[in-house]
């Protein structure tokens, strides 16, 4: 019965802990690993134009679907203009409107994105494009070319590659020459290619975007070709015909709509500036969470004052130490003094570092034990005896600090970080065991305590674990669940396998 309650409770705690964890990790994007900084790219577009006499309306294509990138925020700086964004044919359009404006106008639109591989093309599958109306003699050229390419290709991808190869041939055949007559821009070229693909009933479109790299004062668009093979969109380099996408390619808009339309203005000019910043991954996640309107961040430890955060980053490791303690005691079966003594010693090791921690601890306990045995002759009662040991421990710590300072070993000063009450109790327990069970048992349990302390220290000192628990404190519920289960673990301890080896032999 109890057993079942424990299982149910442990399962509930695990599910709760893990689901909050997954939500924060997958949806809100809290980082599980420790590289706390992520590049955030800010792209600013400035639309400049001369205002006309009447009302002004400005439409600018802005990013909608951005594979490989997630939008952190966007904003617009435009004095006096009404601002809205709408979904349009090529994706999303930002629209500014004003009744009347004078002189030179500048409208800024700024968007910040960060890399996130989980964002992929979630666009719908397009219908087969209608056969485009093309006039003769273009029509024949297209038909011949499409027919030739079809003969030399197997599927959509190889068709596209072959088509692009022919179109880019330095010594083109006459059909290609005819089709490309008068085309002088990359966008125009891709436009012709999409038309040809459409006549082969292959859905294709232009993509315009920026390869994000460093700081760019005035970034130029790169036009790329997107082809749908029935399952997903493929990207093709229109110049080489390779199926690829430039590194960190941010898709700004798709299709052949113009980037900007200005009604009631003239001399329109659009400039793009790109800047990379390093931003705390946690800050990004919190912004993300705020956008989603979730309360998960309200309970984030990152919202606490920095000083308190520092305290908690240590405190949250204590459950890890307790977990190690449970495993070492109940599953491995190592003898140790005191339930949590090794964990507290491990905490002290964090400050002293392992090597000096071990030396100082051994020194302190050895000296303390010696004096405890001397005290034993006085036959003191328990509480006065414990107090005497405690005072001796404090004096010893002082002594060790003074001596090591004299000798110039500054690490010796950190002996003050050991929990003196715990050390005093350890010395007392050790001396009792020493008398009752003999020196061998006492030293074995002493070494066991140190071994557990070192194991706890190792885990409690893992930076990624500390980050993980601090960012996702709900994982403590999972640890709690494990400890509950361990509390009902009735299997053998590892050391019992050796203890009962005589029985296993027969």
């Amino acid at each position, binding site marked *: 019965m109890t057993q079942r309650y424990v299982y149910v409770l442990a399962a509930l705690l695990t599910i709760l802990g893990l689901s909050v964890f997954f939500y924060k990790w997958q949806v809100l994007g809290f980082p599980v690993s420790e590289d706390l900084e992520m590049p955030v790219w800010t792209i600013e577009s400035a639309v400049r134009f001369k205002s006309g006499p009447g009302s002004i309306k400005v439409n600018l294509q802005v990013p909608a679907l951005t594979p490989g990138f997630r939008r952190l925020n966007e904003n617009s700086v435009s004095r006096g203009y009404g601002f809205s964004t709408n979904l349009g044919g090529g994706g999303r359009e930002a629209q500014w409107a004003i009744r009347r404006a004078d002189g030179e106008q500048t409208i800024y639109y700024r968007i910040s994105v960060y890399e996130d591989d989980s964002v992929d093309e979630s666009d719908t599958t397009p219908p087969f494009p209608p056969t485009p109306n093309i006039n003769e003699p273009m029509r024949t050229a297209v038909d011949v070319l499409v027919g030739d390419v079809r003969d030399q290709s197997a599927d959509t991808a190889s068709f596209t590659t072959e088509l692009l190869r022919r179109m880019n041939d330095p010594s083109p055949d006459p059909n290609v020459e005819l089709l490309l007559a008068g085309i002088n821009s990359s966008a125009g070229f891709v436009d012709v290619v999409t038309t040809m693909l459409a006549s082969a009933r292959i859905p294709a479109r232009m993509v315009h975007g920026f390869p994000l790299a460093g700081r760019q004062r005035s970034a130029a668009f790169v036009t790329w070709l997107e082809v749908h093979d029935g399952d997903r969109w493929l990207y093709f380099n229109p110049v080489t015909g390779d199926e690829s996408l430039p590194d960190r390619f941010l898709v700004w808009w798709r299709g052949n709509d113009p980037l900007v339309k200005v009604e009631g203005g003239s001399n329109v000019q659009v400039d793009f500036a790109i800047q990379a910043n390093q931003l705390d991954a946690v800050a990004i996640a919190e912004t993300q969470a705020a956008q989603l309107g979730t309360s998960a961040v309200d309970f984030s430890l990152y919202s606490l004052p920095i000083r308190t955060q520092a305290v908690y980053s240590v405190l949250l490791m204590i459950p890890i130490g307790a977990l190690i303690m449970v495993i070492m005691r*109940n599953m491995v*079966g190592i003898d140790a003094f005191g339930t949590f003594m090794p964990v507290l010693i491990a905490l002290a090791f964090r400050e002293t570092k392992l090597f000096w921690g071990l030396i100082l601890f051994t020194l302190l306990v050895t000296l303390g034990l010696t004096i405890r045995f001397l005290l034993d002759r006085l*036959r003191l*009662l*328990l*509480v006065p005896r414990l107090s005497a040991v405690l005072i001796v421990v404090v004096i010893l710590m002082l002594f060790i600090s003074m001596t090591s300072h004299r000798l110039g070993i500054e690490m010796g000063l950190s002996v003050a970080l050991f929990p003196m009450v715990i050390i005093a109790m350890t010395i007392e327990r050790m001396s*009792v065991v020493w*008398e*009752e*069970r*003999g020196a061998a*048992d006492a030293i074995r349990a002493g070494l066991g305590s140190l071994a557990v302390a070192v194991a706890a220290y190792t885990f409690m000192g893992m930076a990624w674990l500390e980050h993980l628990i601090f960012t996702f404190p709900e994982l403590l519920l999972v640890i709690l669940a494990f400890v509950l289960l361990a*509390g*009902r*673990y*009735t*299997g*053998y*301890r*590892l050391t*019992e*396998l*050796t*203890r*009962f*080896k*005589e*029985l*296993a032999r*027969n």
Partner: protein
Amino acid sequence: MLSTAKKLRDIGVLGLNERNADFIMRLNPRRLYPRVDDKALTKDLALKAGMAVPDLYGVIEHQAEVRDFASMVTERDSFVVKPAQGSGGDGILVVTGRSDRKRDSFRLSSGMLISEGEIQHHISNIVGGQYSLSGNRDKALIEYCVRFDPTFADVSYQGVPDIRVIVYRGYPAMAMVRLPTRASDGKANLHQGAVGAGVDMSTGETLQGVLDDLLVEEHPDTGVLVKGLKIPQWDFILESSARGYEVTGLGYLGVDMVIDAERGPLILEMNARPGLNIQIANCTGLTNRVARIEEIFDAGASPADRAAIARREFAA
């Protein structure tokens, strides 16, 4: 490693985790612990239940009573002074006789002479909590000194050999004889280096021994074979230990008995957390026997019935 665990599981070896979680926590309610932790109370309860215990000559509870010590033992030449809540045999003084010339000078089991004043000081220490593990005030018991039966004389090095019986819900499940060695300093505690010898439950004959988790054939100090010794009054021992369940109410109990040359088996103390090495001494695990007891458990069975069942079921 897993195969070892599986093998141990197959022969029903009880591990510490299982003992603590499934036996002690389930069967031994905390409130019953004083009945076994305080030897004065244990003795009192056992006497009321009609069990044989070493006679109690007197109890000293307060410092003021320490000087009454001499009057308690005027009639006696040998006696034992022990703390009621001591552990591991600490603080026990075994007086085997008096000096021929002076009545107020006592001879200890080691042969040393000790004055009445020194014994009083020792008692005063016991009362002050010197030997009680918790450090609390304690009582000093002055009781009959067991003249132990010669059966185990050849396989004991000084000290008092005793018999430990594990009693599960009133049914004796497993037993061993604990033989003091030089290393155990005359104490019958396996942790301190005593030899434990398994016992065939049906015949009361000793089996092989265990020393520090290893099987041994002979006593390490005397070199005499441990195996094949017949424990006298085995029936009575089983029945007395079965009765320990009624006395203490503890479902998982270790009953420690000694065999006196004249008075037969006497209950020395009982233990709410008996150790697990008894399994090595018997070359078998406890869980199988416990499972069998659960099958045949009958709340109405008398201690004698339960002892008989143990003899019938748990032959080696």
